[in-house]
């Protein structure tokens, strides 16, 4: 985790019982600097990416917060979706979360065979080699919010059979 310079609170998290807006941005650009929190108290967090350490930090922030909180996640789609998946596990419902994805960015391909995730810049409908099992995966717009990625499945499987 990289703490935003203007907000040392990023390391320790919000005060216990926080019920305002939690603004989380991923990547280099601070996309939420101008975000309108609608007059509610806000806390800002910035992470380089949605890596396990960042997500653990985000979870601990949420565990100290109370119902009434609104969460805004911004940045590259792969990071935003990974974070959205993690916070859904904390019990947050759609109405509590706003996702602001950059228009371009790499996608996460979830391998239907070995369940590993592979990040790629390839467009929908193309192939990518799975990082976990080396299977050549093809993927469509079949997206899972739970895993935060697109389903990849063995390319040309029907031809091989």
């Amino acid at each position, binding site marked *: 985790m990289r703490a935003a310079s203007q907000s040392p609170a990023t390391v320790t998290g919000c005060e216990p019982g926080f019920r305002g807006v939690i603004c989380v941005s991923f990547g280099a650009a601070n996309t939420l600097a101008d975000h309108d929190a609608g007059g509610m108290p806000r806390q800002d967090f910035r992470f380089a990416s949605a890596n396990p350490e960042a997500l653990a930090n985000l979870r601990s922030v949420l565990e100290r917060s109370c119902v009434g909180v609104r969460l805004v996640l911004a940045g590259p789609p792969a990071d935003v979706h990974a974070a959205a998946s993690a916070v*859904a596990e904390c019990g947050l419902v759609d109405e*509590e979360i706003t996702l602001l994805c950059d228009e371009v960015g790499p996608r996460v391909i979830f391998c239907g065979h070995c369940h590993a995730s592979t990040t790629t810049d390839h467009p929908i409908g193309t192939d990518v080699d799975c990082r976990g099992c080396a299977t050549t995966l093809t993927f469509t717009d079949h997206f899972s919010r739970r895993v935060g990625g697109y389903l990849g499945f063995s390319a040309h499987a029907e031809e091989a059979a």
Partner: protein
Amino acid sequence: MTATALQTKFHPVLEGTLQLEVTNVSAQTDSITSITFGDPLGELLPSYVPGSHLVVQYGTGANAYSLTGAGNAPREYAISVLRVEDGAGGSLAMHALSVGDRVQVSRPRSAFAPAATAKHHLLIAAGIGITPVLSHARYAAEWGASASLIYVHRPGTGAHVQDARDLLGSGLTECTDRGSFQEVLTRKLTTQRLGTHLYVCGPADFMDSVLEQARDLGWPKGLLHSEAFSAAALDDGQPFAVNLARSGITVEVPAGVSLLETLENAGLSIPNMCRKGICGECAVPVLRGVPQHRDLYLTDQEKADNTTMMCCVSRSLDPELELDL
């Protein structure tokens, strides 16, 4: 009610249902009686989701009562009924039951289920509203789910108080007046961990007040669950006309008379049960015109679609409605 008095003709909503025997009757308070029903042959009854209710036939009517058990492979269905002297008669009939009487009941119907993804269940009950919430509390205790309960009851008149204490321990907050309840409610609504779902049951104005305060304090709708027992009193409304497209007739609905009554007087048979806009049985399809939705059954989206209305309480914003009847 005795076995010989049993109706041979079922209420329409009870067709294909269960005939059970009263296995126990016990007074909870002066005005609340607990009744259990079992299979006459001692078989297990169908399981149910916590917060479900049972429709029980009495005379020519039928009424819904919340089940108070946890619902997993039950040998008995238990309900607790508040005697209402000036009601439609259901509660008086329930209070007249004795052990051994046979009753016709529906399968349990679920409309107030716990959220599977909840991290904590905040239960709020007032008066007889404890019944479905007790089902939730038993379920939470049985499955190790996190739950707490605010129970508002007048001293000495609360049903299942000891059950609630045993099930929830320090998770139970009892309130015996409005002032202390308000204080507890505000504190609880502002201190719940994320992932908490709220469940409320009690009088209509009580539930409205709790839900409104929760929304004002930032609770999204998806976390709020309520079970209506009684609807708020509705005004007489404006007169309007309904054109029944398939019957080819037009009937006038005067102020103070419901659309359901008007349709029945016109000779139509409309399935119905609660006649209070709660149960959803009397839905009628709308072809033209904008209904004035006054029910508690349809979702906001369904109301906005204006293709269905609950004819027991809802009326019309237009001078004339066209129904597919």
